[in-house]
Every structure is written in structure tokens, then in C-alpha cells.
């Protein structure tokens, strides 16, 4: 687990696209003390998101450190997924969504005009709630990203001229599957359709697919909510392992899960505010706000 130390954060506000509206001083006060080092992998600053006229996130600021697991928890509809999707601009795909504020990846603003979405998403990978493998072979699922990015050439033409990257492809597939702890289970049927895998395997496949494009940050939206306990346990182990190399952000509705796997936890509450953010242990054992305590102890939600 990476060391986390509260420090002053750089002011990214200069780079902001739009200024935020008023912020809820009282709730912010509770956690703004807690900040990470300068080199936060992702620095989110005063992020507002609107769907049409509905505000889904209210001036959220938080820093995601590298090589650790950050959990986002909160009741349904509080904006966790929305927040997550802002981090790789998947929200751009929603017509009604409007985003204000700033998100910086390694200090580089991702909401500025010239940002190349393709590059961004290569560096900030995402795993969804429902496992969503392509209806292709396991192999093809993994090599899909690299192939499309031109890192692998396995086209007909290449094969015809014998210049294809079949071996690299194989190596890459194996590496990604091993990393996602799936290799042993599927190595004998790489050519089978990925839809034939169990839910848990599918989800690990999706993680492997994401790893294959070699991202810096991995976003996961309730990656285990559709899975049974055993598969869930495997995914949890995997997440902890991934944190050794990547910055992982996980949304979960399962507080036990959050406490088990994460290094720091952010608690969102209804209305899209970030109420508390800090080291996981502290949040679960000694939450600063009454609302968070109520939520964590199951008074509601």
C-alpha cells in the first residue's frame, strides 16, 4: 500500500474551464485538510456535472494517488458512476451531460480543447459494472485494443506477407490474462467465445482487456456487483494486486468490500456531494461527519 500523507495540493484552479458555483462550506471543511502529495495521479478540482438541468455532482474536488486503491461509496444515485466517468471523459458520450471544473492526469488538464480522447482513454482504462466482453474469442478480446491502436498487426494482409505480429500478440494476451489472474483458467481455450465464460471470468477478462492497452489508471464501476461471492473474492484479490502498479479507482455499494480492499475512501451522499474523503480505516472507524457515520452504520442505504 502506498504511503499517503496529507500535504498542500497544487492549485489547478487556474486551468479550470469554468468556475464553480457556491460550495457547501460545512461539509467541505470536514475533509479538505486531507490531501495527497503533489504528484497525485489524478487531481479533480471543483467538478460540477449536470444532466440537463439536474445537477449530479456538486463541486467535487479530490486527488487520486498512484499505486493504491481509492474506493467511492455512497447510496444509490449519489453520483459515484458519474464521477468515475468524468475521469476518462466517458461522460462526453452522454448527450445531456455538461461538465464544469477540472480534472488533471499527471498534472495535465483532460478537459481542455486539444485533448485526444483516444490517448486519454488508453491511459485511463475502465471496467464496467456488468462484464461486457465482446462476442469474440478470448484472445481477440484481449488483443482488440492493441490491434485497433496499431500496436499489433494481425490483419489478413500482414498474415499474407508473413509480417504479422502473431507472436507478440500471443505474448501480450498471456501477459494480460496472467495479470488478471485468468490465465490458468482459460489458457486451453483462448479461441473460445468469451461469452461462454462465467460472470466472474468475464469480468476478469474485461480487466485483462483493459490491462492489455497498458493504462496508468484503472476505473472500475461496481465491478463485482453482478457476481457471486467466490467470483467477487477473486476480483477483490485482483484489485489489491493491481494496486501495486496502477492507480485503481473503484466504485462499490458494498461497504465491507470498500473496507477490505481500499486504501482511501470517498463517501458521496445523495445530491452529488463528496462528504468525506480520507484513509479507509479512518473513514470506517472514525468518520468525521454524522451523516457518514449514519450511512456507514447502516442507518440508511
Amino acid at each position: 500500500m502506498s504511503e499517503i500523507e496529507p500535504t498542500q495540493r497544487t492549485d489547478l484552479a487556474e486551468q479550470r474551464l469554468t468556475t464553480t458555483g457556491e460550495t457547501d462550506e460545512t461539509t467541505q471543511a470536514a475533509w479538505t485538510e486531507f490531501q495527497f502529495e503533489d504528484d497525485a495521479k489524478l487531481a479533480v478540482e471543483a467538478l460540477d456535472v449536470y444532466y440537463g438541468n439536474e445537477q449530479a455532482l456538486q463541486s467535487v474536488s479530490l486527488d487520486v494517488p498512484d499505486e493504491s486503491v481509492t474506493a467511492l461509496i455512497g447510496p444509490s444515485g449519489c453520483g459515484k458512476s458519474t464521477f468515475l466517468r468524468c475521469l476518462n471523459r466517458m461522460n462526453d458520450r452522454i448527450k445531456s451531460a455538461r461538465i464544469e471544473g477540472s480534472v488533471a492526469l499527471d498534472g495535465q488538464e483532460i478537459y481542455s480543447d486539444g485533448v485526444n480522447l483516444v490517448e486519454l482513454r488508453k491511459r485511463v482504462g475502465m471496467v464496467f459494472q456488468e462484464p461486457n466482453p465482446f462476442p469474440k474469442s478470448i484472445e481477440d478480446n484481449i488483443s482488440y485494443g492493441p490491434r485497433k491502436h496499431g500496436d499489433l498487426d494481425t490483419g489478413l494482409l500482414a498474415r499474407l506477407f508473413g509480417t504479422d505480429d502473431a507472436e507478440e500478440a500471443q505474448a501480450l494476451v498471456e501477459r494480460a490474462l496472467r495479470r488478471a489472474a485468468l490465465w490458468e483458467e482459460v489458457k486451453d481455450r483462448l479461441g473460445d467465445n468469451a461469452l461462454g465464460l462465467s460472470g466472474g471470468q468475464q469480468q476478469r477478462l474485461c480487466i485483462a482487456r483493459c490491462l492489455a492497452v497498458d493504462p496508468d489508471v484503472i476505473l472500475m464501476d461496481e465491478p463485482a456487483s453482478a457476481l457471486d461471492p467466490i467470483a467477487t473474492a477473486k476480483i477483490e484479490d485482483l484489485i489489491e494486486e493491481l494496486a501495486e502498479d496502477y492507480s485503481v479507482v473503484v466504485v462499490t455499494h458494498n461497504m465491507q468490500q470498500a473496507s477490505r480492499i481500499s486504501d482511501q475512501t470517498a463517501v458521496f451522499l445523495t445530491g452529488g456531494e463528496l462528504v468525506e474523503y480520507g484513509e479507509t480505516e479512518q473513514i470506517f472507524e472514525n468518520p468525521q461527519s454524522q451523516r457518514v457515520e449514519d450511512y456507514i452504520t447502516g442507518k440508511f442505504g
Partner: protein
Amino acid sequence: MSSVTENRLAAADSTTGDLVSLGVIGVATLTFLASWLLLLQWVDETATVAGLSVLKLLGVGLAVIGGGLVVIGVGSRFDYIDTTPSSSAGAPVGVVFGVLWAILGGLAATLLLENAVVLWLPVAVVFGVVGFLASVLPGEDVGSTLPVAAILILLGVVVAIGGVNAGWTWSPDWSSASFPGSELVPILVVFGTLLGAWSAGKAKEGFGAEGRQAGAYYLIGSVVFAMLGVLGLLIGFIVTNGLQTTLTGASLLGGRQTIPFVGLQVAWPEFPFLLNQTGGLYVEIPGVLPALVGTLWLVVGAVSFAVPLGIGAAVFLTEYAERGRFTQVVEVATNGLWSTPSIVFGLFGLAFLVPRISGGNSIVVGQLVLGFMLLPLVLITSREAILAVPDARRDASAALGVTKWQTIRSVVLPAAMPGTITGVILGVGRIAGETAPLLLVFGGSPYPSTTPNVLGGFRFSAQPPFVTNEALLSPASALPYQLYSTITAGVFPKEIFTNTEFGWGTALVLLLVVVGLYAIGVGSRLYFRRKLHNE
């Protein structure tokens, strides 16, 4: 009437009531089937069974059903039979019986008195009101049996005693046709037995909610049975009529085929009806080969015209264009055009395409016109198929940093293919059986003696348009057009078949081709659906 208040978790054992109801249902079923035999003329109305003419037997059947219903109704009313009827049979039943009684009263009045509105109208109204009240006022057991029984017994007795017999005809003023007893009686009996089975079905389950369910199920079951029967008969009819023609001269190993290069002769299946020309002096067994090949070319042309256009447009409309007014209008328009009558397309082809392309009836215009017809369907189905690709897949691809077109090509289109293919096959099934536009833009000789030689027909020249194809620019025949020609061309030029025989043969081949296409379409849909769900 027993009460409903007591909670019955377990049903009572079967009673005499059940037996009577079962008996009534049995008689109703038999009578129902018997009247169909008469209607389909499989049994002559003059035939007799046990000394009674069939018609009279039908009457007896109706009367027996009516009698049975009376027993049930009265028995239930006085608690001899254990039932749980509702307090009333309900308004819909009342209205139906009211109308039936009104018709009965009105008819009786016209027959007995005179055909004048002043006379029959009041009688009909009175009967209607009586029928309505008789079915809604008493409890459900009486209300849904006795009014039926009355009608059935009346009808049954009139028929049984010969009041209406095969020779009797009813020639109303408003109709140019007249209705002889030989047909009218079976028709009435069909409806009568349906009513009877409904009523008895209700009784069998002791009326109430479950009685109504049973009644409705009997009714629907019989109607659907009849429907499936008729549809099945149609197909059976074509098959039995066409089979002999189609198989004329056919043999499994009678033919000879020389293996190319080797020169060896081997036994080969022979199927002259499929493989022979239709006309020409030297054809012994005329066949439908030209039509078969013509249909093939039509389909190939229409598909290669409509499928790329339709799929391309579907991709644009779903993936690139913003959803809004425009896409909506296109959707409405394509749906409308898909149901636009084919003859209208034919008219368009005749007036617009023929003068510009071939100057006369031709394969290529036929292909285009059928292509136009197919186009909306391809657009609709591939659009649906593309829309059905879960957004999750697009998101997944986008989240890997893959561009839009690559996503479309590698994720969306492959996933949409099954739906599109299914749709196209079904569409092809439909256009392959399409006749109307072909009359106007495609068809040539009714008894063609050559198959269109499209592949060999290409000619290249130094002048524009550089490529021509005489075969494509000439008229031809297609299976549905061949059938139409056979109907209109009347006298078949060969002794071996009569015109109708050749027609049935053509119809059978057409049916096999088109229904075969449909079967592939329906089957592939099932297959893809299963595949998607299982894996």
C-alpha cells in the same frame, strides 16, 4: 347454487355435472368437426348415417347439446350439481346473446311474416331484449346456459325435423347470392357448437372465474384449431395437387451425368420439372427452370442493390446522425414504404425505370423494383439490429481508446449481422414471391424456352456505357410470374399436363422456395437468439 364464501383450497371431486358437461363438449366437438366435413365437401350433404341424413344428424347434435345445457343450468340452479357461479353472467355475455336472439327473432319474423322493416324490427328488438335479460338477470349458471340452449334447441329441432333441409334456400333481397340449407346449416352448426362448447366448458369448471376461463379457452382453442386447420389445408392442398406434376419423370438414379475430364457416366438424380425448359418444341416434360433461374437473378439483383444501401443508411442513421426529427421522419417513411403495395412500386418502375433503362420489360428493372421494395426492410431491420447492440459494448470499445469507425466495424456491425441477415432473408422470401410489379416491368413469354444467360450476357465495348448485358435487359420469367402466366395463358401447349396441373406444380415449387427462405429466416433467428442466450 352453492356459496362462494367458503374458502376452497382443494377442488371438489368430479360430479354428475362434470359428466354431463363432458358429454356436451364431446357432442359439440363431433358436431363441429362433422359440419366442417360438410363445408369442405368431403362428405356430401345427401349422405346418410344410420338412416338419417347428415344434415339432420347435425340438427340432432345441436338439439342434444342444447338439452345437455338445460340439464346443467337447471341442475346447478337447484343445487343438484355442485357449482360456484357468479351472480350474473355479465354484460358482455348479455350483449352477445341479445344480439343473437335479435337476429334469430328478426329472421323468424322475415320468414314467417313479411320482409318489411316495420314488421321485423320490433320483433328483433323484443327478442334481443329478452335474450339480454335472460342471460344477465339470473345467476351465471342459468344465464350462460339456458339462452344458448334455447337457440341451439330451436335450430337443432328445425333442422332435425327437416324444416330446413339441403334443398331449402334463403335468398335475401340484399344479396345477389342465395344461401342453400346444405351450406347454411353446417355454417350455423359451426357457430352453434362453438357456443355450446363455451357454455359447457364453463359449466365443467363450475362457472365462476375458473368456469369463465375454461369457457374462453374452449372457444379460443376451437377457433384457433379451425384456423390452423384451414391454413394447414391450404398447404396440404398445394402439396397434394402439385406433387404429382412436380415428380413427373423424376427418379433418383435414372439420369446420366458425365464426369468432366474423365468421361465416365454415372447415375444421377433426374428432376425434369425443375430442370427442364417450359416451352419449346423439343421439351417432353415442361419444367420451371427458366422461372427458377429468373427468380434467382431477381433476388440476387435486388439483394445486391438493397442490402449495401440499406445497411449503410442504417449505420449512418444510428451511429452518426443525431437522433432527432430527421431520423424519426426517415423511420416513419421507411415503415410506410415497407407496407406500400407492391403494385405501386411496379407502376413506378413501369413509368420511370423502364423507359430509362431497358426500354421494355427486363430483368434489371425487375431487380431494381424489387430492390426498392426490399430497401425499407433492410433499413428497418438492420437499424433495429444495430440499435439492439448494447451500448455497453460501444462504451467498452470507446473506453479502450478505439475510434468510432473502428468500433462500428469491429464491434457494432458483427454483432448486428445476425439480425440483419435474418431480416434480409425474410425480406427476400417476400420479394421472391412477389408478382404484381413483375406483371408490369419484368415478365416476358409465358412459356419461355431459354433460361436467362446473365453471366454469359456481358458485352464490353469501346463506347459508353462500355458494359451491356443483353440478358439483363430482356424480359424473363420468375416463379410467381410463371404461376400467373399459367393462370392467364390458359391452354397449356403440351399434352402431358393440363394447365391447372402445371399451375399446381409451379405453385408447389414456388411455395417450397419461398417458405424455404422463410424457414431459413425464422430458423436463423431462433438459432441466433439461442446462441445469444445460451452463451
